């Protein structure tokens, strides 16, 4: 297959637009998160790592919108999200507790071309680092990497509080293989069979469980703002170049 001209490449990226989404399925993912499957007939598809803005409109016309990373999507839908409840949130409690199949939502996307991974883009190893629900775009990257049969080495370091907090647990386990390594960090409680330490990541543990800076990995870090900034600073201390570290912060406490 010959490469398409550059102008076509530029245009092949899906354009952002507003779409009407119908909730097809709401599935309890963890004690605080749900997996939402949305029917979006007009959806153009999305690159792994991108997000959308979801807008809710109250009966009195008040609107609130939030960004959610896309776990998976295909042209014409479905679009799959995982939404973790933020205790003081305005949008996530509605999505976790109230939304039902058949409900309609407005989504704007796909959005973002910075925190994305494209198959075949590079032979360099890729290190993904997730804090909590920051795993969603990184799961999308791991799934796209698997689907493309990309052989560049991919590693995911995923920090969760407890075993029951792992999002896409079965899917991530199924992706494990020669080109994809998954490592979990339990900060509060580990499975009974767990032999490793329990507790927050520190710089030494990060160094021991990620691709070494000398291998020049491309690194993606997603999580709460505090998590992302802590990890990114340690990665630079460990010798990774700032330009090799892509970050996405979702706020939080």
């Amino acid at each position: 297959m010959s490469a398409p001209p550059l102008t076509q490449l530029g245009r092949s990226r899906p354009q952002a637009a507003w779409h009407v989404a119908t909730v097809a399925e709401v599935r309890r993912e963890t004690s605080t998160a749900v997996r939402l499957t949305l029917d979006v007939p007009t959806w153009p598809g999305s690159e792994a790592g991108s997000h959308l803005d979801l807008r809710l409109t109250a009966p009195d016309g008040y609107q609130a919108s939030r960004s959610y990373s896309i776990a998976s999507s295909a042209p014409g839908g479905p679009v799959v999200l995982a939404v973790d409840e933020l205790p003081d949130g305005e949008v996530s409690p509605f999505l976790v507790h109230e939304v039902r199949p058949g409900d309609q939502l407005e989504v704007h996307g796909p959005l973002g071309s910075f925190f994305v991974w494209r198959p075949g883009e590079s032979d360099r190893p890729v290190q993904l680092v997730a804090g909590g629900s920051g795993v969603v775009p990184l799961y999308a990257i791991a799934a796209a990497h698997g689907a493309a049969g990309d052989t560049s080495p991919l590693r995911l370091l995923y920090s969760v509080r407890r075993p029951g907090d792992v999002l896409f647990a079965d899917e991530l386990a199924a992706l494990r293989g020669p080109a994809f390594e998954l490592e979990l960090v339990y900060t509060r409680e580990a499975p009974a069979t767990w032999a490793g330490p329990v507790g927050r990541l520190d710089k030494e543990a990060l160094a021991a469980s990620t691709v070494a800076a000398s291998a020049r990995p491309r690194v993606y870090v997603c999580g709460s703002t505090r998590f992302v900034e802590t990890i990114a600073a340690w990665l630079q201390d460990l010798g990774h170049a700032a330009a090799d570290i892509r970050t996405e912060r979702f706020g939080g406490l």
Partner: protein
Amino acid sequence: MATHLDGNALAGALSEVFRADVTAARARCAGCGGVSPIARAMVYPDAPGLVARCASCDQVLATIVDAGDRVFLSLSGMSTIELRR
């Protein structure tokens, strides 16, 4: 929201202004002269709009205020944006 976000969060608002996504585009800070992808800016969502600041020197790069039927966009803190065709 208790803390800041980053320039990835500007993608939705900026897509209403620019033809293609610009969060991966590099911009020059009018304060310190540093060049960095817009996605690396620090974004404060608690003002009446979104305020993007330079991650290096804290200069206000951009403000975006959604006023319903209008959007107020200031890019005065960016002296150049590199747009790919």
